[in-house]
């Protein structure tokens, strides 16, 4: 093996793990599957960030309609201390067959977490006392503000809440 070949081998070995990592850039490794205990810390972070937590599912038509607005929101406030978290209530056994293909099709950049916890009667009131269990539903909190919305949003409505909170 001449020095050039040796160098190329070394170099490709060096790049191998990086290329593997880069291959997975589009979503797959980003979907964490949690039960409610695993989700709860995301609903009560106390720092100077504003959190927008949307509860949705691929089978929920009004949820799908507002996904682009949450994407737009995440992009618009990328440089600010705003974090958009999309909590999917899809069935865990459809993660590969349904959720991930959907995320790729919609080019979702916001972080997605799959909440796999069938005992919703226990955890619904812990998200918000008044939540009936209907989706879409969205929790906005941070900087002393906390509000739970059981409604469909437009981008303008989301933008108004976040821009007011940031300028507050």
């Amino acid at each position, binding site marked *: 093996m001449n020095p050039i070949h040796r160098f190329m081998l070394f170099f490709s070995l060096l790049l191998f793990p990086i290329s593997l990592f880069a291959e997975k850039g589009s979503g797959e490794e980003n979907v964490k599957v949690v039960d409610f205990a695993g989700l709860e810390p995301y609903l009560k972070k106390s720092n100077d960030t504003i959190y927008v937590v949307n509860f949705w599912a691929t089978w929920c038509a009004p949820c799908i309609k507002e996904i682009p607005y949450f994407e737009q929101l995440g992009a618009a406030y990328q440089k600010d201390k705003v974090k958009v978290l999309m909590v999917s209530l899809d*069935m865990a056994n459809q993660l590969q067959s349904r959720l991930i293909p959907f995320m790729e099709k919609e080019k979702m950049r916001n972080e997605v977490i799959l909440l796999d916890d069938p005992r*919703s009667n226990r955890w619904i009131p812990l998200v918000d006392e008044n939540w009936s269990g209907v989706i879409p539903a969205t929790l906005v909190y941070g900087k002393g503000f906390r509000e739970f919305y059981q409604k469909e949003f437009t981008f303008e409505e989301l933008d108004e809440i976040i821009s*007011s909170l940031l300028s507050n």
Partner: protein
Amino acid sequence: MKNLLFTVALFLWSGLVLQAQPIAVGSKAPAFSLKNIDGSTVSLADYAGEKGLFVIFSCNPCPYVKAYEDRMIGLHQEYAPLGYPVVLINPNDPGQQPDDSFEKMKQRAAEKNYPFPYLQDIEQTVYPAYGATRTPEVFLLKNDGDGNFTVAYTGTIDDNYQDEAAVEEKFAANAVQALMAGKQPDPATTRAIGCGIKVKK
């Protein structure tokens, strides 16, 4: 000042978005008279001879309905002979959700061999009277006699939509058992994730 204005604005706004809640347990059950898939009309008054009934807001395409469909049939098979039958009401506007057309309702009922009426709330007046927001959503009514029914339980069928074998609490069955024992259901209200009702625009 800006802070205050902002708070006031948000307060006003959140006040405008009033959240629908199920009718309170103990309330008089709202009457209904709706078209069944066989073309007949079914009314709450038709159940005057029963001890009570389960009114379940349901639909065709919702995955949570599909997960619970066999358990709805099971509830009827177990409790209809004891005086507590099940009636399904589809509250969705077929204009918004074509899978909930009257024809599709007939098809679904035939496929699953529904042993109970499957009614269409085509005017969308019954589900708001019950304060239903999603499918499936259960209302257990108790017959107080003289054509009066009261709401005894609202919520979900049990605590695990995914896996019937892993159910720990059969909320709806426990509620009707409590009524049969002359007691108040406890819990009298539960919550679950469901599909939002498709409202006519």
